[in-house]
């Protein structure tokens, strides 16, 4: 099938789904939906439809964003607007079917909002919800809207147009220029210019070159990579093929952590479908470009997400970082030139190619172009995943989008950019979402995880928990990190037990500086951040623990659990 025929077929299928004979019921079934109980809701919907003897198409879709309201059920009558129901239980699922699906009367008191042209009595537009009002969706444009298991739904919504367009109308050089012009920077942590990185790989004339998509996402508090991969896997697949085309790469891998079944299965399914339709493999869409892609899994290891450790894991080894140089663009996976990008980075690419680099560069703030894809967690009223233009400030994110702290409590701090990013005190809430602004404040915007903590949080206890994570996840290859993390944890545990000693903060500082200077990868180099930032903003609270031997919140007095087994 030519792409024009594919697109026409996709269109026909989409129309019959949204304007055909039967209602379409979408159930949020990403990790957030599952954790909220979507499986039971799905069963209830099916049996309820059967009992009423009505036909409807049910699809498990990805994450629409407002995870706090999961399980979400989205009912669309043929040709009508979608009604998004919140906190659905098996019981309310029955009510929704009986009233909305059978009688055509939406159940206003169960609805979060509607999406579509025609308004619905008693139900607000979802776009007016605080979590939605500031959104600009690029990478998340399809998340929660389409069935991620159906490639035709992606194509019907403009998918693979950019690939078709570049294979037929653009040279690799022209594509690189668009990506350079977009100002796109890596969303995996370091915010390195994507175009520059691609140029390195494009410069190598080796026949076998790799493009790797990093969905390790070990950062607790971050779920947007997994969220994108399971909500709209084809935008990632298309982004990878485009990266391959621009850089002249022959092969790619999507790298995911074993055990996250949703993202893994969605990614595998998407790759398979793309092969079936000739979007992967030999002579893509009849062009002379060929590219092979597969999904590779890692075991549990945070450091697996570091780019050289990732290559070790794909090669099947212990995921320990390599020495650099040589850099991956020269000697990478299986010794071949390699480019590594984060899921979010690659998910932007189809839209950048379709709409042009200048369009993307027109969104955002300073050198941080485009959007920030944030994961909001902690005691916030609205937790979930949002995509907003760079440049909004943390106040807007926390108080407008996330609706402030639950129970009217005060915010104490936020933890951004993963455990290694450290914490920010409340005086910093005017910081704009911008890589440089965050860096200047000593924080990391990184992959977009924002964990809020309220006034009841003990900073020493939280720091101990963060360092317990970092210690557990140290791969053990270089000793400044391996020993340093253990040493920091030992001291923090002592302080938590209110047995800290004068000089403990100074001791941690000297350990931390050695880690910074001597560690092989970012894990150890940044590993002191949680401690140094905590002391910077909450020094007196550390003093209370060490000098006065008291924990102002009492949190340190409770029991603590963390894994005893570290890597062997």
């Amino acid at each position, binding site marked *: 099938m030519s792409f024009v025929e594919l697109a026409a077929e996709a269109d026909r299928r989409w129309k019959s789904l949204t304007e055909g004979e039967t209602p379409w019921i979408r159930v949020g079934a990403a*990790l*957030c939906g*599952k*954790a*909220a*109980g979507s*499986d039971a809701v799905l069963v209830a919907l099916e049996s309820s439809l059967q009992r009423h003897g009505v036909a409807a198409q049910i699809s498990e879709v990805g994450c629409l964003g407002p*995870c*706090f309201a*999961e399980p979400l059920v989205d009912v669309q009558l043929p040709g009508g607007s979608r009604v998004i129901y919140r906190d659905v239980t098996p019981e309310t699922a029955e009510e929704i079917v009986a009233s909305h699906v059978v009688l055509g009367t939406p159940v206003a008191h169960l609805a979060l909002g509607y999406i579509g042209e025609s308004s619905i009595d008693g139900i607000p537009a979802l776009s007016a919800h605080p979590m939605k009002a500031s959104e600009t969706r690029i990478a998340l444009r399809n998340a929660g809207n389409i069935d991620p298991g159906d490639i035709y739904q992606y194509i019907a919504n403009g998918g693979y147009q950019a690939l078709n367009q570049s294979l037929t109308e653009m040279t690799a050089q022209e594509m690189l220029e668009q990506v350079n012009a977009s100002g796109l920077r890596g969303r995996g942590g370091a915010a390195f210019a994507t175009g520059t990185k691609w140029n390195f790989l494009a410069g190598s004339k080796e026949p076998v070159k790799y493009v790797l998509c990093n969905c390790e*996402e*070990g950062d*607790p*508090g971050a*779920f947007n990579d997994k969220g994108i991969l399971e909500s709209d896997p084809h935008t990632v697949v298309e982004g990878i093929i485009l990266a391959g085309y621009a850089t002249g790469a022959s092969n790619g*891998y999507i790298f995911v952590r*074993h055990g996250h*079944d949703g993202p893994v299965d969605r990614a595998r399914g998407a790759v398979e479908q793309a092969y079936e339709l000739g979007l992967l493999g030999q002579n893509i869409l009849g062009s002379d470009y060929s590219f092979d892609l*597969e*999904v*590779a*899994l890692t*075991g*549990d*290891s*945070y450091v697996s997400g570091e780019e050289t450790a990732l290559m070790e*894991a*794909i090669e*099947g*080894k*212990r*995921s320990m970082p390599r020495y650099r140089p040589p850099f991956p663009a020269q000697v990478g996976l299986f010794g071949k030139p390699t480019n590594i990008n984060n899921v979010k980075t690659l998910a932007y690419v189809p839209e950048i190619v379709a709409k042009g680099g200048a369009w993307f560069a027109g969104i955002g703030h300073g050198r941080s172009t485009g959007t920030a894809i944030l*994961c909001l*967690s*902690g*005691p916030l009223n609205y*937790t*979930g995943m949002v995509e907003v233009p760079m440049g909004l400030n943390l106040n807007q994110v926390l108080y407008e989008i996330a609706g402030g702290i639950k129970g009217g409590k005060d915010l104490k701090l936020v*933890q951004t950019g993963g*455990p290694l990013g450290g914490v920010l005190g409340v005086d910093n809430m005017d910081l704009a979402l911008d890589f440089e602004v965050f860096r200047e404040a000593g924080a990391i915007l990184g992959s977009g995880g924002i*964990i*809020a*903590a309220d006034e009841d*949080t003990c900073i020493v206890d*939280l720091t101990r*928990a*963060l360092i317990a*994570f970092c210690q*557990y996840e140290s*791969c053990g290859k270089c000793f400044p990190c391996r020993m340093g993390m253990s040493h920091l944890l030992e001291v923090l545990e002592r302080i938590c037990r209110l047995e800290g000693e004068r000089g403990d903060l100074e001791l941690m500082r000297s350990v931390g500086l050695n880690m910074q200077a001597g560690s092989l990868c970012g894990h150890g180099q940044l590993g002191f951040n949680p401690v140094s930032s905590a002391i910077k903003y909450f020094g007196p609270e550390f003093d209370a623990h060490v000098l006065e031997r008291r924990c102002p919140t009492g949190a340190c007095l*409770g*029991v*603590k*659990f*963390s*894994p*005893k*087994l570290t*890597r*062997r």
Partner: protein
Amino acid sequence: MDGLKQRITAAIHNQPQPTVTVLSSLLAVEDAIGYIPKDAVEEVADLTGTTINDVWAVASFYPNFRFDPPCEHQLELCWGPSCHLMGAMAVIAAALDQVGVEGEGDTSDGKLSLRYNTCLGACAQAPVISADHNLMGRQSPEKVRAAVTALLASPSPHGQGGN
């Protein structure tokens, strides 16, 4: 146990990942059998042209691998920062108490294997647990006690008597 050997061979040869490596083979065995039997280490070494030592080196690095048959049920409790801030410590304490253990490990009756997880990926629903690989969010000490009871009363996902 010829049956086990056959299952190992089948798991390794039917693995979904086209690029076959030591790690991909071990993950396939873990998925199919629930642990890495000694025979699997040997077979993976043979298949990938490495040594038993090389395979052990990989298997021992990733804490998701275990080397003896798992219990009938698996319970994972998230201790990551988002969950920590939302009360994971109290949830873990209640779960341990309900199971009757002090920490990670297997119960002596072979009913339940319990592990901590650094992040189950549903942080917006913190605190999160996973019962036989089903995610359950918004836990409280009361809810997790009920979840443990329900888990122990449910049929084992891998049939009778472990693995």
